[in-house]
């Protein structure tokens, strides 16, 4: 079994690197950790980078997970090959670009591009956002799935993910104590469905609601509170149709033995207990 330690970073292609950079800093509140040829790396916490925009196709989207050792990385590569997922071993240059010691890349059953990384680089300097959004760090991704049952099985049997709750067929998956680090949403394409950053308090969520609206950026869902993870949330539009989320107060699942996942309805009340209605395609039936 592939033991995913944590979600590590997201890489997104864009045709407008300057625009995406402006958005990531002035709106989202991330900090530029490095500008290189054709790519900008962004910091959201103690890690050296958790988001990278690069010049390229916006459909080119990658999410990376950390594994503990090179032995595990090698074993994961072999296991994925055995299961019929072609694996690309990262070159030294590619690894340097990702600020990791080593990595393998593959596609999950839906076709989402996943990287497993070993020894992602920490930052010596702490994160300081371009605006006071209260970000405490990159925390989870929503992934598209063309078959939720098949993909849930992949993440929970090939990898170490556990189902924390389900909204309809959409599983919210944890790989550590945090309620979810991966969420799978049924749709007809591959790619990253949303990118979550945690913020310090629900005040930060509410403040950002007014800030984002004043900037003329569509808020697509919220402010609200998820009945599943109990997190206060706000979803809003990013460059190239990406959806970004701020949330605060996500539930921790400490007792693995006693916890039992719950089923919520795939309808607005399953997504928000305050009464907000999602304007996100994958959250609507």
């Amino acid at each position, binding site marked *: 079994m592939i033991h995913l330690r944590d979600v590590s970073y997201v890489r997104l292609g864009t045709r407008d690197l300057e625009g995406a950079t402006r958005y990531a800093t002035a709106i989202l509140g991330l900090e530029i950790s490095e500008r290189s040829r054709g790519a900008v790396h962004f910091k959201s916490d103690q890690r050296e980078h958790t988001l990278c925009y690069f010049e390229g196709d916006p459909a080119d989207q990658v999410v990376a997970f950390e594994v503990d050792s090179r032995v595990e990385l090698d074993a994961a590569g072999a296991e994925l090959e055995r299961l019929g997922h072609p694996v690309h071993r990262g070159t030294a240059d590619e690894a340097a670009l990702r600020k990791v010691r080593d990595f393998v890349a593959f596609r999950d059953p839906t076709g989402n591009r996943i990287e497993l990384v070993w020894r992602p680089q920490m930052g010596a300097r702490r994160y300081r956002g371009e605006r006071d959004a209260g970000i405490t760090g990159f925390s989870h991704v929503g992934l598209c799935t063309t078959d939720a049952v098949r993909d849930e099985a992949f993440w929970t049997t090939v990898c170490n993910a556990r189902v924390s709750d389900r909204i309809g067929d959409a599983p919210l998956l944890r790989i550590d104590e945090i309620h979810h680090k991966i969420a799978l949403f049924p749709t007809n394409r591959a790619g990253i469905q949303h990118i979550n950053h945690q913020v310090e308090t629900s005040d930060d969520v*509410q403040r950002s609601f007014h800030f984002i609206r004043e900037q003329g950026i569509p808020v697509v869902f919220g402010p609200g509170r998820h009945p599943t993870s109990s997190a206060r949330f706000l979803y809003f539009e990013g460059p190239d149709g990406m959806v970004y989320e701020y949330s605060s107060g996500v539930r921790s699942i400490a007792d693995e033995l006693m916890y039992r996942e719950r089923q919520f309805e795939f309808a607005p009340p399953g997504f928000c207990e305050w*009464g907000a209605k999602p304007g996100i395609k994958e959250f609507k039936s």
Partner: protein
Amino acid sequence: MQIAIEQLRYVVLGTRDPEAARRFAVAELGLQVANESADEIALRSDERQYSVVFAKDDARRQAVGLEVRDDAVLLAASAILESRGIALVRDPALASRRNVRALAAFTTHGGVRVELVVRPQHQAWRFFPARDTGITGLAAVSLRSTDVAADEMLFAEVFGMRIADWIGDAAYLGFDGAHHRLALHPASRAGVLAVEFGVEGINQVMQQFYRLRPEESEAIAHGPGRRPVSDQVFLTFRGPDEVLYAFVAEGRQVDPAAPPRPRQFADGPASHCSWGSECRVPELDGRAAAPARPSLRGVPRP
């Protein structure tokens, strides 16, 4: 001698359309009708027998009810207020209507009508809301005053209220463990600006926000937001007869024995909400036509 206020007790609101007021109070606020007569509807929000009275009367006739301990206090108040040129009038008929042992009313220099009551009724059976709004009780009343400096002085000096904070010239007044129970806002006409109910938590505040359909309706006047002065989460919405209602939750508690120093905040919407919500209340965003900038308490008018 100071006249000690025991409790914020009720608010009286004149209404042109009692049926509409009653519908709003029951459906929107979840209050329970406690008593209904030909000219009055009393509604319950907590352990008090009632905390809101709609009077079939002039819509501008508004008052706030404050509880004092006993008849002796009422007598003393009469003398002190008289020395300040304010008549305290005993009204046995109104006392009987309000279901209290004694009642005396006065009007402040700023035009705020106050009813002082002795031994108002406590309800033995628990409050059962008409709708699950999570109301915990009447929390505060925001008042418009045409002379905030004089009224602030009156409430502070005669009734021993604590100045919690100021925003511009508006004063927040407390007399128990809550940050404030009354707020005085400068305005060109006196009366009740907002009636505020405590609710269990932020969930109830936000549920009310979505219930009021923020996209399509003009019902929301301010919020959802958090008040920098009291740390309360709030949502202010419009009720009948141009009175505002608010749901508030959380908020700072104060030790009345060792209250913190009052702080001065700048006039303007930023001092009323730290989330940056849109403010459509003229009294709060500096747009209200105050008669003239009032002199501050203790600072002579230039």
